[in-house]
C-alpha cells in the first residue's frame, strides 16, 4: 500500500459524494473516504455540493446544468483533487463541464483547470496514488460490471480488477458482455421504461450466467438498476459498490436488501 505519512505532502482531496450516494447509500461515501485516507490523502466533503447536473444536462436544460457546474466548481476550490465514487459523475465533471462552459472564456478556463483535478475514485487510487493492493476480506465470488461512462470516458477497466485481486477470499468471475450498458441511462430508464427493462433483463441474465454471489460496479445508478431487477426476478445475488468491498466495509446490507435479508 502506498502510504504517505508526512502531513505536508498529503494531498487534499475533496470528495464529490454524488447525489445518489448521499441519498441512498452513504456507506459508499464512507468507504471512499477510508480508501482515500488509506491512500494518504486528507479528505474533506464540501457542504456546498449537490448534484453534478447530469439530469439537466442530458435533458437539454443547459442553463440549469451550467449553474450546477459553476456551483460544483466553486464548492471544490482549493482542493488538490476532486474524487467521485462514480464514473458517470466524474466523467461529467471532467469531460462535460469544459464542453458545457466552453462558451464563456472565464468559465471555460475555470472548467478546464477544474477538469484536470477530477478523478473517478478507483482509477485515482491506482493511477494517481499508485495503490496496488488493499487490506480487505470478502468471502465471495463476484462479477464486475463496467459502467459505461467510467469505461469509455475515463478508461476505468483494469484498476478495479487489480485491486479486487488483492481482496482476501474474493474470486472474480467475468460475465459475458461486462462492457455493455445495463439500461439505466439516468433519466432514460424513466422516459423509456420498456426499453430500459429489455436491456437490464439481458444484463441480469448475463450476471446470473456467471454464477456469482455478488455483483460489483463503480456506479450506484447502474447498481440500483441491476440490483432492483435482480431482486424483482428473485435472484439470490447481492449487489455492492466496489468501494465497499475494497474498503472492507461490507457489514451493511447489500443494495436493496434489509438487515433480515443479510441474516
Amino acid at each position: 500500500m502506498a502510504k504517505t505519512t508526512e502531513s505536508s505532502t498529503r494531498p487534499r482531496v475533496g470528495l464529490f459524494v454524488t447525489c445518489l450516494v448521499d441519498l441512498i447509500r452513504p456507506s459508499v461515501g464512507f468507504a471512499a473516504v477510508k480508501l482515500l485516507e488509506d491512500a494518504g490523502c486528507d479528505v474533506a466533503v464540501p457542504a456546498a455540493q449537490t448534484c453534478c447536473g447530469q439530469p439537466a444536462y442530458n435533458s437539454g436544460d443547459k442553463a440549469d446544468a451550467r449553474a450546477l457546474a459553476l456551483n460544483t466548481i466553486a464548492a471544490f476550490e482549493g482542493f488538490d483533487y476532486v474524487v467521485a465514487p462514480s464514473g458517470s459523475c466524474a466523467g461529467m465533471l471532467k469531460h462535460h463541464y469544459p464542453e458545457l462552459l466552453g462558451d464563456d472564456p472565464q468559465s471555460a478556463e475555470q472548467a478546464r483547470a477544474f477538469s484536470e483535478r477530477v478523478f473517478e475514485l478507483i482509477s485515482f487510487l491506482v493511477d494517481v496514488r499508485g495503490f496496488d493492493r488493499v487490506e480487505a476480506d470478502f468471502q465471495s465470488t463476484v462479477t464486475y460490471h463496467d459502467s459505461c461512462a467510467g469505461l469509455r470516458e475515463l478508461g476505468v477497466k483494469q484498476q478495479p480488477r487489480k485491486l479486487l485481486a488483492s481482496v482476501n477470499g474474493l474470486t472474480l468471475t467475468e460475465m459475458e458482455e461486462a462492457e455493455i450498458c445495463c439500461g439505466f441511462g439516468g433519466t432514460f430508464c424513466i422516459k423509456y421504461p420498456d426499453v430500459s427493462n429489455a436491456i437490464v433483463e439481458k444484463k441480469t441474465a448475463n450476471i446470473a450466467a456467471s454464477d456469482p454471489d455478488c455483483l460489483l460496479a463503480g456506479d450506484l445508478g447502474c447498481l440500483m438498476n441491476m440490483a432492483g431487477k435482480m431482486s424483482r426476478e428473485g435472484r439470490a445475488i447481492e449487489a455492492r459498490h466496489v468501494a465497499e468491498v475494497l474498503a472492507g466495509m461490507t457489514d451493511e446490507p447489500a443494495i436493496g436488501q434489509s438487515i433480515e435479508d443479510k441474516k
Partner: protein
Amino acid sequence: MKPTSHAFKSNAKEALGNEPLRRALGGIKRGFVANRARARANLPEFEDLRDEAKAVKEHTLAHLDLYLEAYEKKVVETGGHVHWASSADDARAAILKICRDAGAKTVTKGKSMVGEEIAINEHLEQAGITPVETDLGEYLIQLRHEPPSHIIAPAIHLTKDQVEADFRKTHTELSPERVLEEPEQLVSEARAILREKFLAADVGITGANLLIAETGTSVIVTNEGNGDLTQCLPRIHIVITSIEKVVPTLEDADTILRVLARSATGQEFSTYTTFTTGPKREGDLDGPDEYHVVLLDNGRSEMLGGEFHDMLRCIRCGACMNHCPVYGAVGGHAYGWVYPGPMGAVLTPTLIGVGEAGHLPNASTFCGRCESVCPMRIPLPKMMRHWREREYENGDTPALYKAGLKLWAFAAKRPALYHRLTGLVSPLLSRFGRKGRFASMPLAGGWTDHRDLPAPQGKTFQQRWRERETRR
C-alpha cells in the same frame, strides 16, 4: 414513406413483444460485432486509420464546394451527367425524367439509403414504372412493403422461416412442392428470379458509397454483385447519392474503404468494390450508354459548420447500431423512418424535423459505445444531446417531465435548501422501506413496474458526515 418516429414508444413496445425479431437481433452480436472486433484486432493500424479517414472527410467538408465542382467537371468530361437536387422532390423529379425520357418500364435497383430517403420506389410506381430491388435484403423487404430495419442489412429483422413464407406467397409461378429449407435454396430462388429482371430492365439505379473528385468516379461496395449487374446491363445507369459522399482522390477513397467494411461486417474488404467512371466508351465490351449522377443535398449543406456538422462524416457502415443496446433491443423499425440507431437518432431529425423525430435522440442511454466504434469518430451522444437542447429551448420537452426537472434544479442550485430537503426525505423513505427496497412507489412507476427500488440507508451522507465532524 410516412414516418412513424413520433410513435417510437409504441413501436418499441411492439418490437419488444416480437419474438422472431428478438431472435433475429440476437444474431448481430455473434455476427457483425464479433467480426468487427476480429477485423480490428487483425489490423494494428486500425485506430490510426480511423484518424486518417476522419481527416480525409474533414478536409473534404471544409472545401466541399470545390470538390463537388471538381467532381462534376470530371463526370462531364468522362461523358456523364450530374443533376443537382437540393430537395428530395428535386431528386425524384430528376430520376423520373431520365426514366421517362428513356421510355423505361422496369428499373432495377442496387441498395441505396439515399433512394430510401427520397422514397424513389413509391415515386416510380406512381408513375407506372416498376422498380425491382436486387439486393437480397432489399428485395425481401420490397416484397413485404417494409422499410429497411438496418442500413447495411435491411432485412436483418427477418428470420429464414419468414422469408420462406414470403417467397411461397410471391413466387406463385414456381412449384408449391419445392423445398425451401436451407438459406442456399432461398438465395438461389431469388437469384433465378432476379436474373430475369436484370436482363429486362431499361434503367439501373444504384447508390454510391463514395464519389471521387479527381476522377469523377462513383464507388459501390456490395457482397452480392447485384450492384454490378444493375449498373452494367441496362442502357442507362443512374447513381442516386448525396453531396457528402465526395472525397478528393482515389487514395482518399482507399483510406475510407479500409475502415468501411471492417466496421460494417468485419470483412477486410467487401466482396465487390466497383469503381464506375462515365458511360460505356468506344471499345468497351459492356456498360451503359448513359451515366447520370443525381446529387442530393436535402438539408446536408445546412449542417456544415453547425452543431451537426460531424454527422456529415458518416459513411453508413452501421457499426453504431450494431453496438447500440437500444437498437439491439428494439430493432430498426421502431425508429420509424429510414435511418435507425444512433446515426438515425442524429440524422433523422435534420431530415424530417425534430417535431416528428424528437424521441430518437432521447431514446439513448448515452452509453457511448456507438462513438467508441464509429470509424469516423462521430460524437453521436453529443449530437443527440444537441437535439435535446433544441427541444428544450423550443418548449418540446414533455411538460410533466420538465416540471419535475425544474423543481429538482431549483433545489439542487440551493445547497442549504437541498440538504435540508434530502435530510428529511432520505430518513423518511428509509423508514417506509424497511425491506431495503420498494416494490412500488407513487410517481416512480417507470422504475417500479419493472424492478424494485432500493431504499435509502437512512440519514444522508452529508448528515452523517457533519455529525462525525462535530464529534471529532
